[in-house]
């Protein structure tokens, strides 16, 4: 399947910002599952791409002239291999065993993971866990914030895709299974889920397998991967800081659509 993505983010500031810096992870790269056909990043000034610690394509945008808004545009087309489920990797998965502040498993999460998986450490166990978390944490837009931890969302029984992914990571790691956070795009039929999406991957038998708690999907079909990390903070599309500016208004417009195929092959 070919997906066409257009993702525009606009920041408006109450006052002039004296200087700002953003880590942008808005460029997908080729993998076993996806092939980037073309991709453009529109930034206020040209920025060299680099790889971040997780191998994600990173742009560091620094602006040190006064500004009142920043517009970031990402768009392109990516071909997804729907049949391909797992992704292989040369780097050791062990660093993804470690808890982070957002993914620490408290007693409740540990017990939940234990109940759903017992002694099993395979894909079917994690699929059960995914279903369990999906029922336990209801999807509710605005119910949590970016700094909400897995334990907090689990206790509150509400959250968004980020919380679903974090809770899954906390549980999987508590079982001794390396797991990582994925940020990306999702082609969705309904309008209640954002096209910007987050899910989890777990390391099973030498490959990374996807677990989308929000959609109860263990097979990534319409998922386009942007970046991975130990949690949201490592992988989020935009992480920035600024001096001055007062309050901020952010507008994001994401459109993911299937690309009409001009038949070939």
């Amino acid at each position, binding site marked *: 399947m070919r997906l066409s993505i257009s993702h525009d983010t606009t920041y408006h500031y109450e006052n002039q910002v004296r*200087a700002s*810096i*953003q*880590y942008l992870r808005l460029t997908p790269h080729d993998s076993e599952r996806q092939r980037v056909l073309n991709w453009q990043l529109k930034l206020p000034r040209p*920025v*060299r791409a*680099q790889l*971040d*610690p*997780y191998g994600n394509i*990173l742009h*560091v945008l*620094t602006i*040190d002239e006064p500004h009142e808004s920043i517009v970031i545009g990402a768009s392109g087309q990516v071909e997804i291999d729907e049949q391909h489920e797992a992704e292989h990797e040369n*780097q*050791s998965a*062990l*660093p993804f*065993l*470690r808890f982070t502040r957002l993914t620490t498993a408290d007693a409740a999460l540990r017990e939940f993971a234990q109940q759903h998986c017992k002694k099993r450490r395979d894909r079917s166990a994690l699929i059960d866990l995914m279903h369990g978390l999906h029922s336990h944490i209801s999807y509710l837009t605005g119910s949590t914030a970016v*700094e909400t931890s897995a334990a907090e969302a689990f206790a509150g029984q509400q959250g968004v895709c980020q919380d679903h992914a974090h809770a899954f990571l906390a549980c999987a790691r508590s079982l001794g299974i390396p797991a990582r956070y994925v940020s990306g795009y999702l082609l969705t039929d309904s309008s209640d889920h954002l096209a910007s999406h987050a899910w989890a991957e777990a390391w099973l038998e030498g490959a990374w397998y996807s677990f989308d708690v929000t959609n109860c999907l263990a097979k990534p079909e319409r998922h386009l991967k942007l970046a991975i990390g*130990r949690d949201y*903070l490592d992988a989020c599309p935009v*992480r*920035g*800081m600024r001096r001055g500016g007062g309050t901020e208004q952010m507008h994001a417009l994401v459109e993911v659509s299937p690309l009409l195929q001009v038949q070939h092959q």
Partner: protein
Amino acid sequence: MVRTFYNEMYQANGECRPHYQAFARWLAETPKELLAQRRREADLLFHRAGITFTLYGDEQGTERLIPFDTIPRSIPASEWRMVERGCIQRVQALNMFLADLYHEQRIIKAGIIPAEQVLANEGYQIAMQGLNLHRDLYAHIAGVDLVRDGDGSYYVLEDNLRTPSGVSYMLEDRKMMMRLFPELFAAQRIAPINHYPNLLLETLKTSSPLDNPNVVVLTPGRFNSAYFEHAFLSREMGVELVEGADLFVRDDKVYMRTTAGAKQVDVIYRRLDDDFLDPLAFNPDSMLGVPGLLSAYRSGHVVLANAIGTGVADDKSTYPYVTEMIRFYLDEEPVLKNVPTWQCSKPADLSHVLANLGELVVKETQGSGGYGMLVGPAASKAEIEDFRARLIAKPEAYIAQPTLCLSTCPTFVETGIAPRHIDLRPFVLSGREVRLVPGGLTRVALREGSLVVNSSQGGGTKDTWVVED
């Protein structure tokens, strides 16, 4: 259990050791009132010089004077040469370990250290994977904590490869002794140490491939317990002392704000933990770091000393493997001994530890500063039971060691002169070569019987002499 301690000054038969004889004679001949007066002078001078230390656990954040004892710790030069060789060997192996760990991981493939032990360790930084550093150096500045057991043999208690502190006390203690008792330095040959700031600056400069790099000292600020040292070292080296807010990143380069405009920074001697360096890559709440610093570092435009991710090598759960590292990377026998260590993450070790809590020292693998530590023989029943519960709940967070009979050194106390336990932290600088100034920082546990020498726990310091024997 009878515990015999190695006394640095006296032999078991009460005779003074040869390298202390000149000092002992002087001590016997000098009137007590004069000594007392000199000690008062030292207190006053240290107050004026502003050598203070913010005590953790003190809610007011009160600055305390670190007690300074005027009886030096003395090491014969022949013995020091062995200690020096051992420290150099150890730090070389640790740097090679870090370079290996973040690249080929030969030591894991060779089965010497378990992969999970290091790769899932808190101190392991994914950001360092595959990153090439100038001279393959990670710990440019290391502190090796040494103690002596009952028979006088030296043991490494721990390695400090993150931001080891205390060198300013080493230097100030010497200055003070020379000022108070110049006659002692005329009477015998005591190896000088005042060139440390020069060696440090040289080390920092050679950490960069540039000819004359711009070096700065990055401090968390004046509320940090070691702020005095940060200011002291930058002044002694003649380089800028900066806080995170004084630096900024533009297009992968780091700049310092100055009255004359932005000036590029090439080497950052950072006294800030990894987690606080860059709020966009690590702890987002850090107000102390520099946004964008990690991207600049990974682009190779700035050197951090020490490098990010050294914590995996000085973690107490990695410590038991250091002697094997020395054999693996250097093909040498370790000069300095490791203390036998039980890793509570291993079930067999854990049950041994739980059965012998009253005799062991239990430490947190990630702890520093002497907190989160149980000294079995000195602990109450309640403290032991508290640790038992903690060990059972989170065994992987602890290691245990036999309680060492730390050596003692005569020390001025309220009742006169009495033996108190001491340790030694030599500072090891790695640049073009690996070097130390003779001696190091001697810390003394001022409470009778106490084995905890950390300044944050009320320990004091002594001048450390290496004397020709």
